[in-house]
């Protein structure tokens, strides 16, 4: 298949992104991730196939979904809207008919050229701000051929490329991507491998190996560390972050990302159990983390990112 016609599963394309890498960027969110972090703030990005979300609180009981659904997945009785997820075929007709935004289909297909047609529209802004294209997710490396083609296409047009990754892919894939990625936003989630497996579904060994591999190849990497109350806000993990700072002095920064529970309504709407109790980190909690991180040796720049 021609590269420009290669298609991938997307969640969204967000223009004017200010926080997904250097400068002003366009962020392409892909759908599907090999990890299943229990605190995931974009739970709609985990599955590789489209998903219908039902936001109960937004439903106005207008029953339009019921009239367009080909499988009878939406039923109404005594002012209550029931959605049978098993009957749903993710056709998205109800989401289109829903006037209140209570139903939303997450995930759509787009070709490399279709994505590039949007990306290239802000080329002047990228050039002026040292920005560019960021591929995020989900996990960009998981849609190997599509992401590779997209990054190559961007490069050919002189657009800076950034990938936001969990680092979990085959080593061969990571190396194949290497010449086409200008900047990595690399997640560091948990130092303790047993806990890493319990909370994300995979071991961190391969991830750490890839971090080392990229660093050895002089890749520009910014480490992003989500801190989730009660899960990884431990001296062990803070010391682990500090150890990486010492081991990799040429990182383009380490950024602490305190947990927020914005993903919870989406998880509920996707019928995905809220697997963690944690609430958005409070200021007091962040202050306590800051003290603990300082005690574990973390530098000022890490503390200031909190």
């Amino acid at each position, binding site marked *: 298949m021609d590269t420009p016609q290669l298609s991938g599963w997307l969640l969204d394309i967000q223009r004017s992104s200010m926080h997904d890498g250097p400068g*002003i960027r366009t962020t392409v969110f892909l759908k599907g991730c090999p990890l299943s972090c229990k605190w995931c703030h974009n739970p709609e990005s985990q599955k590789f196939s489209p998903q219908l979300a039902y936001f109960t609180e937004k439903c106005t009981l207008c029953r339009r979904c019921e009239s367009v659904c080909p499988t009878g997945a939406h039923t109404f009785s005594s002012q209550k809207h029931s959605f049978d997820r098993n009957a749903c075929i993710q056709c998205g007709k109800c989401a289109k008919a829903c006037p209140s935004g209570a139903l939303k289909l997450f995930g759509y297909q787009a070709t490399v050229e279709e994505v590039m047609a949007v990306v290239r*529209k*802000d080329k*002047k802004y990228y050039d002026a*701000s040292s920005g560019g294209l960021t591929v995020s997710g989900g996990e960009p490396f998981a849609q190997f051929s599509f992401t590779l083609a997209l990054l190559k296409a961007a490069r050919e047009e002189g657009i800076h490329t950034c990938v936001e990754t969990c680092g979990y892919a085959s080593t061969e894939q990571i190396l194949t991507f290497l010449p086409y990625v200008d900047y990595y936003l690399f997640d560091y989630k948990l130092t303790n491998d047993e806990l890493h497996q319990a909370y994300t579904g995979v071991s961190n060994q391969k991830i750490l190996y890839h971090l080392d591999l990229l660093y050895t190849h002089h890749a520009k990497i910014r480490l992003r560390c989500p801190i989730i109350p009660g899960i990884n806000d431990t001296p062990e993990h803070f010391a682990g972050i500090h150890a990486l700072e010492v081991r990799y002095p040429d990182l383009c920064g380490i950024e*602490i990302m305190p947990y*927020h529970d*914005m993903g919870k309504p989406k998880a509920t709407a996707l019928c995905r159990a809220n697997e963690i109790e944690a609430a958005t*980190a409070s200021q007091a909690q962040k202050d306590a983390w800051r003290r603990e991180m300082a005690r574990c040796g973390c530098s000022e720049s890490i503390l200031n990112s909190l």
Partner: protein
Amino acid sequence: MYSLLFDDCLSRGKPLFSGGIRYLGGTLETYGNINVSDSLTAIKQLVYDEGKISVEELQHALAQNFSGCDSLRSLLLEAPKYGNDLDSADETAARFHNDLCSMIRGMAERVGLHSYLPVLINNSMNTTFGVTTGASADGRLANTYMANANNPMSGMDKNGITSMLNSLVKLDTKHHAGAVQNMRFSKEMFAGLFEKTKTLLSCYFENGGAQTMITVLGRGDLEEAMAHPELYPNLIVRVGGFSARFVELSHDVQLELLNRTLY
């Protein structure tokens, strides 16, 4: 007395507006331009290209102010809107802009002026006139505000600031005597990311932008955004290291953001 300050008035012995001045120019303000172009875009797509709506259905719906025509109105609202860097809507807007400007310029002689140019500023008259204007085919309800000047219809630019700026520069500035381009930033964006904001605006001017009117929003505005989310689709807030559209956040999250200390 005022005429004394202008060339030719004394030698001709005539006051300013009675043939005294050599070149007399004037301007004409226009309103609802973008509602017109968005309406034309919607009609082209839905009536002619896709055939989803008939002319009669549209006429009926507009006459009824969309009462009982919710799905038809949804179709109109979902049609491409100026301000999102979408070719269909922006090309219509640019074409209407050029046609309207040329028409006004061409009327100079008829109105007895040497130059006659449109002005697209509106202040708040787009609202004043809007409340006595019927429903329009862009999905706008009767007796409600119209788009301000040549800016996107309020709340219809949903594709990020760069898209909005790209749309703005598609309307050629050489045809008119002045326009105001509204831009509203959150404090987090404007102050917190000042360098990026500066680059954004420099780039807009390099691309052909002529003017900007900047509003920076603070906490009272978030309360407004909660009460009227449809007016704030592009209000981006930072939540724990992530960016989010304020209006897409759940009620509780919005309250939480609202109650934070504002420095």
